[in-house]
């Protein structure tokens, strides 16, 4: 069992997403530690990209703030080295294919191994293109996380069968961002996923309040939250660690209530 799968073994998981360097790396470090102290089971670290086509306005703005602040891939590797002195939960990078490709795929993925990054989520790398990085991810023991969307239909089985780490189930059509209602029939998607893989499945996109997190975790193995956390960071800036910590505690409690 990979470290990522182990993170789901203790019950329903809560997974926060944080854009690195928004508004600066010191804040990111404090926010990640606060999230972990308050029950985050796995942390998604976003490496900002200039043109994040899968993101809604909230995370787009965070990417822009981080890049304007001067963050780079190398500085983010430095942040992870620092975090790894005390953060034990699995951490994965969420970024776009060009960030990995332009750094040199082998240089990027081998560095992930060296700094103890457990997985890689690339929203613009679908099943058909995963050979771009999969052999290197296998070589260095970094899980390449697959995504399933409400439109995946006949593709779900194939994607699930080859999925590694955990399967990221996108709750709704469209881009990231908070939603008042999630209408997709996620239960039937999860059912197909379960028939084809034993790895955990977590739901993301649109989740912001404890009630939603509980419902989504109830349907799957965990809930992923990005935009709601990014909004807190945008609001509190360098003082975001405390409010994010309190938020993660509430959300983790909600997913823990799932039977």
């Amino acid at each position, binding site marked *: 069992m990979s470290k990522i799968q182990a993170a789901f073994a203790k019950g329903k998981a809560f997974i926060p997403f944080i854009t690195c360097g928004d508004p600066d790396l010191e804040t990111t470090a404090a926010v990640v530690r606060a999230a972990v102290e308050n029950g985050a089971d796995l942390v998604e670290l976003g490496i900002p990209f*200039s*043109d994040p*086509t899968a993101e809604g306005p909230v995370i787009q703005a965070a990417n822009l703030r981080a890049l304007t602040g001067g963050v780079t891939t190398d500085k983010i590797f430095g942040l992870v080295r620092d975090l790894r002195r005390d953060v034990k939960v699995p951490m994965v990078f969420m970024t776009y294919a*060009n960030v990995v490709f332009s750094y040199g795929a082998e240089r990027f993925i081998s560095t992930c191994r060296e700094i103890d990054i457990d997985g890689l989520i690339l929203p613009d790398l*679908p099943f058909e293109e995963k050979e771009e990085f999969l052999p290197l991810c296998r070589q260095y023991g970094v899980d390449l996380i697959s995504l399933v969307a409400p439109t995946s239909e*006949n593709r779900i089985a194939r994607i699930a069968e080859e999925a590694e780490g955990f399967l990221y189930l996108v709750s709704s059509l469209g881009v990231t961002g908070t939603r008042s209602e999630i209408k997709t029939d996620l239960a039937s998607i999860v059912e197909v996923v379960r028939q084809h893989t034993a790895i955990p499945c977590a739901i993301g996109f649109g989740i912001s309040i404890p009630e939603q997190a509980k419902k989504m975790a109830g349907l799957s193995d965990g809930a992923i939250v990005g935009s709601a956390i990014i909004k807190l960071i945008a609001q509190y800036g360098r003082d975001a660690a405390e409010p994010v910590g309190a938020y993660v505690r509430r959300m983790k409690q909600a997913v823990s209530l799932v039977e």
Partner: protein
Amino acid sequence: MTNERGRFGAYGGQYIPETLMNAVIELEAAYLQLKDDPAFNRELTALLNDYAGRPSRLYYAEKMTRELGGAKLYLKREDLNHTGAHKINNVLGQALLAKKMGKTRLIAETGAGQHGVATATAAALMGMECVVFMGEEDTIRQALNVYKMRLLGAEVRPVKTGTATLKDAVSEVMREWSSRIADTHYCLGSVMGPHPFPTIVRDFQAVISREIKAQILEREGRLPDAVLASVGGGSNAIGSFYHFIDDPGVRLIGCEAAGRGGDTFETAATMHTGKVGIFHGMKSYFCQDQYGQIAPVYSISAGLDYPGIGPEHAYLHDIGRAEYVPVTDEEAVNAFEYLSRTEGIIPAIESAHAVAHAMKMAPAMDKDQILVITISGRGDKDCAAIARYRGEDLHE
């Protein structure tokens, strides 16, 4: 030219979110089914001929030829098409395809506004809903085209994110498409994006080189020495090149927008300043920094102001079949003015990039050599901006 999964050599591919994968797979299946269908092609040809005004003329620019004193210059007059540019060739094809697929809504990006106007036109003709995404910066540069699109019944959504130009409009259409797929076709305007778009758009634009070939053989009894076209994403260029790719004697020259110069930061010359990357669904050349962040680009031409280039061009570049040359704002504006006063043809500022390079090449060539320059669009839309470039206080 494509191998498995729409690759041109190492370039192309489908680097898009999972949410859109079934949409592009469905599109490819529909296209493969219809592209050789006689009824579909009859319908499309009728639209191209009766509605868009094809075939477009191949005009011998005699006065310009005499003045430059070298190769014979022919202009492929895509500016004479309905809506004033080559964009309509692709749009009529895609709109018809979308309609056959049961789609009722077209969404599109636009830079200069030409593709947006063409899409709004096809939507009006075919009774489809239409939303055009345009960088806010471009809605200011091309205010007249914004009005035209609205007049044609389309909604224009200004895009304020990023650099508020063409690349941001493309990103925003991708976001929009991933939120509404069932009734919506993304009518992509260039030979870029995920497979099958680079192939579909090329096939619909290949009518340009098919006509050039027949027309020049009829006029001159031989093929041209070179075909020149401006290149941003690269649709008029690939359309102009396509049927000459297997004729090694014909040089294929793409003219990139170098803005204030290929060695400045204010440039959009992708082949000259970019490197291989993955963006907007494709592997190709992109202007980017050392960490893969897409670079802001600049050109006086809103239609060439894009940090990437279509994957088939990347391939033709690497195998040495096509050449890509940088042309600055100043050179393009000079050519814009020159063609206007010499031949009485006001070209789009995009097309003026190709005219500029031809003006450099022609004098050094023999009188029996032939250059074909694709005039991809008409320049009415650019007059105010060029006047301002020359210091006149002219606003639309």
